[in-house]
């Protein structure tokens, strides 16, 4: 039997060794589309943690205007960050468009982003971009309390007001939602682990009602199943756009005064250092931060524009009026610790 086995076993070992060796060195391959002189052209690959449904129209518009083709790979922001980390320098991606700052921070930490030019960075308030200059926010979203005015008469000034027993069983939330977890992460950063735990335990004691998605929280509030819910500001406007203002009774309440409950998080972009067409990638970043790009987000996703001179959609409180808590958005990448805390206080799992 040994004689029969030796060769296949050897072949297997050789193959495994090849794979393992290959893992140690990586071979870059270059696209033929690179053209760094003059007008940016060619094709760029965009990894998008933002839903294709949301960003496709503006990317198509960019392609129409510039002639730069975009290959879009949509996925979960965190998974795409893990993909970029695994691909390393060999990644075919030129630009990473992330749903949240945490994933951008992880790619920055791995040293995979190129520096953005000062002219790009200076368009956006320092609060909404990387301190190291490798990524920049493209639109903002505020945490709000959506409420049903038929069921809520007195609005709390702070998230601490929600710990009052009168709110028991009346608040909806989406435990697995990334924005909720970012809010809790901000709470940890702002109030420390113990402060965050205290609030979460009080919140859990008030028996909040769990929904699978933010949109479900919004619909439950609008239907009066729960009096209020903790979600992002734009869900209300999506519903108004889809069903008309008459069909929607729910309203948004902002906590303001630097309350953790009024956290403003961003979606943003960074250019990969290994990009072979960074000129075209830069053109896309500039486009997203142009009046056209910013108006698109303001008008179609109802998010906050982040450059001067473009106003948020009608009815939104401005970012200045919200007065969100001061926080380095890069600190929001410790979401795993947040999930452990949430599981521990019984707010994540069942």
């Amino acid at each position, binding site marked *: *039997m040994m004689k*029969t*086995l030796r*060769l*296949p*076993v050897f*072949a*297997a070992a050789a*193959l*495994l060794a*090849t*794979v*393992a060796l*290959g*893992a140690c*060195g*990586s071979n870059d*391959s270059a696209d033929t589309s690179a053209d760094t002189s003059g007008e940016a052209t060619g094709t760029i690959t965009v990894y998008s943690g933002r*839903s*294709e*449904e*949301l960003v496709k129209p503006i990317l198509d518009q960019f392609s129409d205007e510039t002639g730069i083709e975009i*290959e*879009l*790979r949509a*996925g*979960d922001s*965190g*998974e795409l*960050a*893990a*993909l970029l*980390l*695994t*691909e390393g320098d*060999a*990644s*075919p991606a030129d630009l990473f468009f992330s749903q949240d700052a945490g*994933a951008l921070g992880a790619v920055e*930490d791995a040293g995979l982003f190129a520096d953005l030019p000062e002219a790009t960075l200076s368009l956006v308030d320092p609060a909404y971009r990387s301190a190291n200059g490798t990524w920049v926010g493209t639109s903002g979203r505020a945490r709000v309390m959506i409420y049903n005015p038929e069921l809520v008469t007195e609005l709390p000034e702070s998230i601490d007001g929600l710990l009052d027993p009168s709110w028991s069983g009346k608040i909806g939330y989406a*435990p*697995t939602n990334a924005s909720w*977890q970012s809010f809790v992460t901000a709470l940890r950063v702002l109030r420390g682990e113990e402060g965050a735990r205290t609030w979460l335990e009080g919140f859990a004691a008030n028996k909040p009602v*769990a929904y*699978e*998605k*933010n*949109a*479900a929280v919004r619909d439950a509030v609008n239907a009066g199943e729960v009096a209020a819910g903790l979600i992002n500001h734009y869900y209300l406007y999506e519903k108004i756009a*889809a*069903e008309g203002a008459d069909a929607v009774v729910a309203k948004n309440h902002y906590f303001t005064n630097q309350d953790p409950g009024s956290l403003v998080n961003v979606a943003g972009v960074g250019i990969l250092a290994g990009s072979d067409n960074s000129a075209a990638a830069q053109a896309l970043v500039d486009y997203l931060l142009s009046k056209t790009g910013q108006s698109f987000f303001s008008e179609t996703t109802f998010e906050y524009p982040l450059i001067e001179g473009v106003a948020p959609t009608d009815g939104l409180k401005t970012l200045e009026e919200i007065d969100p808590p001061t926080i380095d958005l890069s600190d929001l*990448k410790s*979401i*795993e610790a*947040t*999930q452990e805390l949430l*599981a521990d206080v019984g707010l*994540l*799992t*069942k």
Partner: protein
Amino acid sequence: MLIARRHVRVPWPLAVPAVAAAVIALIPLVYLVVEAFSRGAANVWDEIFQARTWDLVRNSFLLTAVVTAASVVLGTGGAWVTTRFALPGKTLILVLLTLPLAIPSYLSAFAWISWQPQLAGFWGAAIVLTFACFPYVLLPVAAALRGLDPAQEEVARSLGKTPQQIASELVLRQVRPSITAGALLVALYVLSDFGAVAAMRYETFTWVIYGAYRAGFNPSRAAILSMVLVSAAAVLVILESRARGRAGASRLGSGVARVDRRTTRVGAKIAALGGVAAVLGVGLGVPVASVISWMGRDTQRDVQWSEVMTAVGDSFIVGLLTAIATVLIALPVGIAAARYASRFSSVVERTTYVSHALPGIVIAISVVFVGIRLLRPWYQELPLLVLGQVVIFLPLAVAAIRNSIEQSSPRMEEVAHSLGAGTMATILRVTIPLALPGIGAAAAMTLLNAMKELPTTLLLRPTGWETLATSIWKYSTVSDYAAVGPYALALMLLAALPTAVLSGLTLLRSQPRPHHSPVTTEAPLS
């Protein structure tokens, strides 16, 4: 009896591709080891020996044990009813009972949770996974039961055995290898599942792995934790090989049984049909009704049927390529395991199972890791997507092929040998034709699973490639369930076709055929 003996030499042309198959199945392991130790060995122990790790291991173990046990009961019960009860439309009932396989567990979990939110947690996850998995037990057990020779039971009865004794001592004993083989696939699936437990918010081990990628941005932590899953899978595979016993090495040939004609009392029939109806209601009714109800919801989009059809085409192409590749790669492993039982063929066969316990994202990232370094021209192209799917579904195909060959008599090959046919000629002209129903079943099983697959497809697909599963994902991320509806319905219908073929082939390959040779009285080795 050369063929059933241990320590048989696996012929060259079978051994080499079989080893290659095992190497493909080990791709994730190579990645896991390299990535896990990228931050030093000390880090590995730190990550593993955390209190939370063991809580999650316990949760996963509990869920795996309950779902596997429930699947064995439901699967064996369903197989019993559809093969041994004199029911009208037994074939149709078996096909219907297999159909829950066509529904992705992430979809049925979401259907349940949006209908009955209070189900969230352990029992919700257990229900969804049991109904998604029990056909893995149902099919091989139904095939084995059909292949049994009723003469044996008549002999036992004439010797004064009670029906209960016959069922437990004779019948169940003979189908035990089919039960354990199915149970192993169920257990590995439960270990690997993320979609259902995420929707049900029951925290299992896959949570921390996904969390390490999505929330921790820490692939090396994910790799370390994945190795715990691989170890659990290895233990299960070894346990199953013990439990399978040696009965699998030799069976009665399918040509000796005669048609079973038995009667069933009316009360038992009604109870059986009631049970079948309940199973179908839970496994099929709820998810299908849920998906159809979504289609009535408000949406900002009109259904683009042309896009749905494109997604149907893309899903089918990926599924078909995966099915072809998986069957070709699994075939030598299945033949070696069934006809050349030896330590070598057993190790090779078992190796193909281990990666089945890994969640899709780990398979995807490992194929990325290897692909971007060694197979760059194929990166983000169809071949790498197919490779990732092959790694996941290889054990399903191996099991189907092995089962089907084991149920055919090795006498045929012996006759071919005695007539002077060489080893390869015998394999090509006797074994493979005998295995055709099993090959068909393997292809159908792979096809339907590849079409349902989401996490690997999402990361490995060619840019712009949109399958039904990725479309469902795309619209559900923006909570547009009205838009999800047509894709979900199309996926269930498309996957139902190979599922129906699968159950049909299962019946075909175990069809008792009248035979001219005298009835053998040989008992199975056990």
